[in-house]
């Protein structure tokens, strides 16, 4: 039996009404979700403000200071009298926020952690293999480099990020970093940008920053090095990048590799002009 045209129209209208209803429902659900996220963010912000007042990262700054000033390694020199982290040998005030930068003596663009490792191998005579054996904190173990990075970072509290993007060498590495964020690969075939390239993405309950915006990149670099309360360990931005690769099921990069410097350069330059608050605290 054939349906008459009026019946079809009625069915059509009902269908349209239904769709509209569903749309209205989903729009309000999304709005509600965004509101919930904003509320959760505000709660975490309060929590962080409370914790920043007594951030255990300070304990690692103290350790880092000892290590920075002590004569160590086969060559028995201190980093304080041999290591230039961007402003000249031993100068730390505001050094963290002008990295990554190009170092002619190493002929490489380096972030602070990479630079400290370079100083430890070149100036103090430590073996890279020994440093890279266990480069990140776990349990009660904190690598010396992590404490040193925290100490150096603590000297740039409340200063503005100013990575030297006008330097063509830095620009080149920045562009490479940008490319890497768009590189899709791995068993799940996704890139950094899949989750961090547009607004409103989240993983489980955690909102993800959009790294292509200055505010998003700021979130990416601001809290590092950071004390993570889960496990009570101090971790650096090198660790953060490494863990991103692990979570993507990519092969993990070698310690202080060009790849990680490129990504840190990309994010830091994007965050240029925004204030760095110093070593952070994470939940």
């Amino acid at each position, binding site marked *: 039996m054939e349906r008459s045209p009026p019946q079809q129209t009625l069915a059509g209208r009902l269908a349209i009404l239904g769709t509209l209803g569903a749309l209205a429902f989903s729009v309000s659900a999304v709005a509600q979700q965004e509101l919930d996220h904003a509320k959760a963010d505000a709660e975490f912000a309060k929590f962080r403000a409370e914790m920043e*007042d*007594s951030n*255990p990262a300070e*304990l690692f700054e*103290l*350790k880092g200071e000892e290590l920075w000033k002590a004569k160590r390694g086969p060559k028995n020199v201190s980093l304080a009298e041999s290591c230039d982290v961007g402003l000249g040998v031993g100068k730390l005030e505001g050094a963290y926020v002008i990295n990554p930068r190009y170092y002619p003596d190493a002929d490489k663009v380096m972030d602070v952690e990479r630079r400290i490792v370079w100083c430890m191998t070149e100036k103090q005579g430590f073996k890279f293999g020994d440093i890279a054996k266990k480069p990140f904190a776990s349990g*009660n173990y904190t690598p010396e480099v992590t404490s040193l990075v925290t100490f150096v970072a603590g000297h740039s509290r409340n200063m503005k990020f100013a990575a030297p993007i006008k330097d063509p060498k830095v620009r080149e590495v920045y562009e490479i970093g940008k490319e890497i964020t768009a590189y899709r690969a791995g068993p799940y075939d996704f890139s950094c940008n899949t989750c961090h390239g547009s607004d409103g993405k989240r993983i489980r309950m955690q909102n993800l920053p959009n790294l292509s915006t200055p505010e998003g990149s700021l979130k990416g670099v601001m809290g590092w090095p950071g*004390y993570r309360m889960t496990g*009570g360990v101090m971790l650096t931005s090198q660790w953060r990048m490494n863990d991103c690769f692990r979570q993507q099921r990519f092969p993990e990069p070698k310690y202080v590799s060009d790849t990680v410097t490129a990504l840190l350069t990309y994010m830091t330059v994007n965050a240029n002009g925004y204030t760095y608050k110093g070593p952070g605290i994470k939940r």
Partner: protein
Amino acid sequence: MADPMKIRAAMKGDVCEIRVLMSHPMETGMRKDSDGKAVPAHFIQTLTVALNGKAVVSGQAAPSVSRNPVFGFKVKGAKAGDKVTVSWVDNKGDKRSDEATVA
């Protein structure tokens, strides 16, 4: 020897606010290492706060307190320039004592 504490003490009105950040592993004894062996308990057991040598707070801590713990106290009857001494003893007999001046 344990790592130093970080102590902040400041007058807020007529109350002295003391905040102490301690460096300690605070092992519960319940965790297992990668070989499956239990990690022995190692935690701060007693802590005291003294003002100019006179104990004003004495307390006990247990394994449920986090690693690298932060403690806050409010003390009446202190004044700027007073000497605050914080000390702790852990279950292995290890101890640490640090000083600060009320600001």
